[in-house]
């Protein structure tokens, strides 16, 4: 693996445990191993993007971090506490501290958009209905979805589902947010607005973000650090600031990714 030195994210300290620590992780499905011996930290207030080709295990890594899948070996610590070894109750408590947006938005089909965003507040707070509604509407405004609050998920486009999913992930004010391809399928303006929202939340609230994405523009805008997975070697092949990785990486797979070079062009250049 190639590591390019980078600046720690905002709020990174050595005194408190990292927001997320992945230790010697081996993960996969049954016999199929997707990632071996992966270790990295995500510091508090840092925005880390997970990159890699299709099938490299980006979304699976995210689900391992969330505690939805159990790794084959290794450990994952959330703010210093193992989510892998935690019993069900402690794991639920750790999961509640993570705001997650899934690839498809994963909104509840029987609730309106507003009710979906309000759902975590309904479940875990004693706030009055009007207060929950205001918070939910504010979050929808934040992702430019205020106009769609009364719509049902079935009436939304893919991009709208994602944005509503982000608003829901933010509802409980979690310190750590994991977003699975948040800007895929969004128009450039909405995508850019979303990037600014992420940066603003990090700057003003010190939130930590782990973002799975392919969008190069978004990666260069938001990421403090990129972690690149490779489906062939089943390992982390690069880690560092995206700009530095593009400029200085000697690994052709990393250069190819960041410069958007098709396979054939690489083959020709290498021959």
């Amino acid at each position, binding site marked *: 693996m190639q590591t390019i030195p980078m600046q720690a994210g905002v709020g990174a300290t050595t005194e408190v445990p990292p927001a997320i620590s992945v230790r010697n992780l081996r993960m996969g499905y049954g016999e199929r191993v997707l990632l071996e011996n992966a270790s990295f930290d995500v510091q508090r207030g840092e925005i880390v993007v997970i990159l890699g080709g299709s099938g490299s295990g980006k979304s699976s890594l995210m689900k391992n971090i969330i505690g939805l899948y159990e790794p084959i070996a290794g450990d994952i610590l959330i703010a210093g506490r193992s989510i892998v070894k935690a019993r069900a109750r402690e794991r639920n408590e750790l999961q509640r501290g993570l705001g997650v947006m899934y690839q498809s938005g994963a909104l509840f*089909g*029987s609730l*309106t958009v*507003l*009710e979906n965003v309000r759902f*975590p*507040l309904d479940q*875990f*707070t*004693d*706030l*009055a209905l009007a*207060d929950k*509604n*205001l*918070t939910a*509407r*504010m*979050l929808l*405004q*934040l992702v430019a979805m*205020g106009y769609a*609050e*009364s719509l*049902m*998920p*079935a*009436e939304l486009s893919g991009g709208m589902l994602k944005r509503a999913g982000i608003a829901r992930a*933010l*509802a*409980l*004010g979690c310190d750590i947010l994991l977003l699975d391809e948040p800007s895929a399928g969004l128009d450039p303006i909405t995508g850019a607005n979303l990037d600014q929202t992420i940066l*603003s939340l990090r*700057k*003003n*609230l010190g939130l930590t973000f782990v973002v799975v994405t392919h969008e190069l523009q978004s990666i260069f805008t938001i990421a403090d650090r990129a972690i690149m997975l490779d489906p062939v070697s089943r390992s982390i092949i690069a880690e560092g600031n995206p700009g530095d990785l593009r400029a200085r990486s000697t690994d052709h797979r990393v250069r190819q990714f960041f410069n958007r070079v098709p396979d054939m062009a690489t083959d020709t250049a290498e021959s």
Partner: protein
Amino acid sequence: MTASATEQIAGDGVRIELRGRITAYTAAPLWRSALETLARHPGRPIIVDASQVEYADNVGIALLLDLMRRDRAATAKVEIRDLASNLAALVQAFDSKDFTAAPRGRLSPGIFEQVGRATVQHFRYVTQMADFVGECWVELRQALTRRGRINWGDVLDIATEAGANGVPVVLLIGFLMGVIIAFQSGLVARQFGAVIFVVNGVGFALLRELGPLMTAIVFAGRTGAAFAAQIGTQKVNEEVNAITTFGLSPIQFLVLPRLIAAVMVVPLLTVFADVVGLFGAALVMLTFDIGFVQFYNQLLQAVTAWDFGLGIVKAAVFGLTIAAVGCQRGLATGAGATSVGLSTTSAVVTSIVLIIVIDGIFSVFTV
């Protein structure tokens, strides 16, 4: 991780001091008490001292925004002081005017609109079903005249899943039906010394009515629902659109194999139900001193091949109906997981109603 709010009268105004970390978990009592303070002092200016706020998440930001947006007299405005610049930036990112209108709930039409919509929906359903039957007929005719139009591998797979895997439950229900009818009828018939005629009743009822009917109801609940859910999910995932854009017919690919499989397996399942039902009845009749041979001889006198054949024909029609309704409901699925659930429910309910109606028609015309 605590937060608090204290209220002080300061000259003409009221001072609310917020402290600590205002988060989703700590904001509720603060929010309530702050609003109560505002309500208690409608004519006084309110100063919210936020200098001791360590952190505010989205709910905390919403609380501050809510206090600022309150519609109060010009001399009694709410002013937030000494809020950390990062939090102030988040509050200022919102325009309180955007939240003045009440939140829009889901659109719920009035009773007359609902009745109207339901009526139109039912008429639409009848026309959709007629279209569907027509399309199926055209596709079936083409399939029978041209080779390779039906994927017999699919038919076999569906028949295995719907038929072979459904045998245990059909056997259980058939057996219990035979036992129950024989036992209940036997108790009554014994009072009149007519126990032997229970065999006539059981044979007639099982072969003509209950065998095909119970099998069909089990099939509707098990397989009709599965057809609607499978095709409905394929519709939601746009697989049906993919088939259509290849210039292929979803009826040919998804519906015909299921219709053919259902017409094949429901009569077979009915035969199983008939046989085990009669066996169960024969077991019960032993307790009424009717042996197996006597039961068999009486049964041959009581029922004819016509009764058995009629039950099998009915079963085939029931199977066709259940599969057609399941597939049609699946293809009519809207968007989202909820629609799949609605289609599945509708498929089972419609199938059972139609089965009973068709059974009634058979009963009237085949006396």
